[in-house]
């Protein structure tokens, strides 16, 4: 084992860490909008701001045998204690049933007037049961003085503030009985769509995978994508009338960009890991140049040297990739537990599953092996005598002028 040294393995671990700590986080960022608005549920939304979604549809949906639970909701965006906070107008029991959540502290006495804060948000902005807070409107000017009734924990986001639907309607400027969307947990999505088709109201159904189905209406793909985003974020008539659709466009552009930006960063991280890996393996090989030179001088051919280097690089890459993944995993857990990385008020939950871990492991090994192969190719061009020299062959020696010129003598 010529190259197998602990300092080389530590270097490669650091390179693997760049991948293992950033890729699940980047994929978590990509997943955040779906986590907030859909999770693993079907979302039934209004088609546009002129056709309101009535909360009464919730009862129709809940009465279906294939529907496990459903929650009518309004999402609002506001600022609490100088922090961006996503406010969700809900019927509390429906929301908790859908999310599999529970109140961990406090209780709600009045279902029409409450403020329930997510446990992560509570610790982040320093509010707890009994504290009063100022809440302003979202796209509609409003103000509320609310008292925190309870703290909830849930399966998805614990970074939100739950309020009653009447409060959220006032924040979003929606009329009586209107909601922005109904999230549904169902065992049969097709049956749900068929049930909705029997209703007269035009709605749009979005599945967890992002497949959008217009019901009782026909819209183009482009309109559909724009409307889905606009409805979910800021599509209120008053907001459009006063502020235009700049923010809506902003959000839409931002959401569209997430996937491309995340992919770009993953590629850049891969390139960084490759550069680092190449430097470390290069250093490891140069450290052994003398031994490699001797082996070459006594007859080892290029294939033998390649096998020697690649075998060691393979062992190092396997060990460092495994350790790098493990340390990266611990770093991610630390960041997630403390809610250190937040975007638009939501903690980023790193996406960790067997597929991603395996993918990162393979990518890390391939990066290390590719860099080793590159170094080996470069090494094969150097003559054994040069490898064995104590000092590097300097360019100035090659280009050194003849002695007679140096001495000022004619040839």
């Amino acid at each position, binding site marked *: 084992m010529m190259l197998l040294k602990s300092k080389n393995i530590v270097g490669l671990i650091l390179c693997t860490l760049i991948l293992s700590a950033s890729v699940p986080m980047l994929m978590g960022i990509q997943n955040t909008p779906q986590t907030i608005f859909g999770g693993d549920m079907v979302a039934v939304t209004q088609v546009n701001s002129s056709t309101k979604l009535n909360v009464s549809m919730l009862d129709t949906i809940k009465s279906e045998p294939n529907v496990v639970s459903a929650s009518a909701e309004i999402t609002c*965006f*506001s600022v609490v204690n100088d922090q961006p906070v996503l406010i969700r107008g809900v019927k509390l029991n429906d929301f908790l049933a859908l999310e599999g959540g529970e109140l961990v502290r406090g209780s709600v006495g009045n279902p029409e007037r409450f403020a329930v804060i997510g446990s992560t948000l509570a610790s982040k902005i320093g509010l707890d049961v009994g504290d009063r807070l*100022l809440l302003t409107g979202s796209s509609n000017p409003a103000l509320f003085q609310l008292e925190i009734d309870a703290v909830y924990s849930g399966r998805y986001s614990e970074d939100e503030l739950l309020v009653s639907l009447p409060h959220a309607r006032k924040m979003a400027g929606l009329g009586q009985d209107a909601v922005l969307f109904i999230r549904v947990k169902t065992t049969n999505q097709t049956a749900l769509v068929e049930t909705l088709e029997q209703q007269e109201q035009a709605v749009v159904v979005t599945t967890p995978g992002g497949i959008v189905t217009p019901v009782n209406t026909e819209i183009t793909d482009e309109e559909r994508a724009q409307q889905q985003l606009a409805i979910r974020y800021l599509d209120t008539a008053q907001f459009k009338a006063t502020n235009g659709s700049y923010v809506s466009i902003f959000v839409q552009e931002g959401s569209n960009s997430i996937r491309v930006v995340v992919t770009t960063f993953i590629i850049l991280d891969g390139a960084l890991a490759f550069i680092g890996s190449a*430097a470390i393996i290069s250093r490891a090989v140069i450290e052994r140049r003398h031994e490699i030179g001797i082996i070459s001088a006594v007859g080892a051919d290029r294939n033998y040297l390649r096998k020697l280097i690649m075998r060691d690089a393979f062992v190092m890459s396997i060990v460092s990739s495994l350790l790098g993944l493990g340390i990266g995993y611990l770093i991610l857990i630390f960041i997630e537990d403390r809610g250190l*990385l*937040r975007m*638009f*008020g939501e903690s980023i939950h790193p996406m960790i599953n067997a597929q991603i871990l395996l993918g990162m492991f393979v990518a890390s090994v391939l990066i290390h092996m590719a860099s080793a192969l590159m170094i080996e190719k470069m090494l094969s061009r150097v003559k054994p005598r040069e490898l064995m020299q104590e000092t590097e062959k300097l360019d100035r020696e090659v280009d050194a002028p003849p002695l007679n010129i140096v001495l000022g003598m004619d040839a």
Partner: protein
Amino acid sequence: MNRRIFATILGIAFCATYLAGTTAMVGGLHDTTSSLAASFDQGPVLVYTDGDFANSRVGGDLLPENDTSFIAFCFANVTLTDFNSRTLGNVYAVSVYDPDDVLGLNMTDESLDTGVWVGTQLADIMVSKSISATTNSRYMLNRGGNMTIVQVSALYSEGSIMPDDWLLISRESMDALRPELEGDYSFLMILDSPIPLKEQPFYVKDTSLTPTSGVVGFFERGIYQVEQGLWGIILMSGLMTAILVYCIISIETEYSAPTIRILRGVGASREYVIRVFMFKALFITAIGGILGTAMGFCAASAISSMSSLANVMTFITPVANLRSVLLPFLISVISGAVGGFWPAMKASRMFVARRNDA
């Protein structure tokens, strides 16, 4: 300069490019959001000293001057009791001073009793507790040891900017409940001001200004949170630069070992050897940092201008400011110093065994 050092400089330049490009993009996103936020109508602005209005206080002598349209509120958290001894806790009683009658409740003079108004949601809550919420109903309001009796005049409409769960009372009743607030207010709502709010008399230490529409503030602060993600990029870029410098200086140390031994043999101090290699490390990282910073702006601008082809981030223009210029350079140099120090130390420990030492 040999090819190895040239390759290292390119590697460091890549790290600096990554950092400079990201910093410039995030800076652009910040500027775009700030300018969008500044151009938006975010509704009337609330002026207060504590998010819990029961603890907030704005001096009565600090009310805005002539041309500023405002409403001043006094707030008390009270227990409401009807004359059948049914009680409702946590009721928000508020007195309103509305000099321009913006709310249309005729509360333009605090010395006059303009009646008691109940919000529709509060009325519903009272009914759910079997407390009558009709006009002319009378209640006792208690706060601590203070008490007052009020009689309902009317319900106020749901369309008001005020919450629907407030009980609007006269200033006289408020003074009975909160005598310590006499002459002062809990918070102000500024509807229109010809001069910047931060230049108004009410803007003193601990004063908060919050627009009543929060969506723009949400996105503005959301962008600031995105900026925190930059630390991850800084860490990765710095780490990689340190690794690169460590490797190159280690290699240079290996190749220069005979020279170092001679230098040490003829009396060069350890500090001298360290200085030589640290200078080399800093030179490599400085060149890489400058090159990478320049490349970062080029790459970010190229991505921004070509983004329309991929329909991505067309609204972000990379921004070159002091931070986006200095940060990548400084991170490169600091990382270079960290990465170069250990091999330089190692080099300084090399020595030649003299003949008479043997």
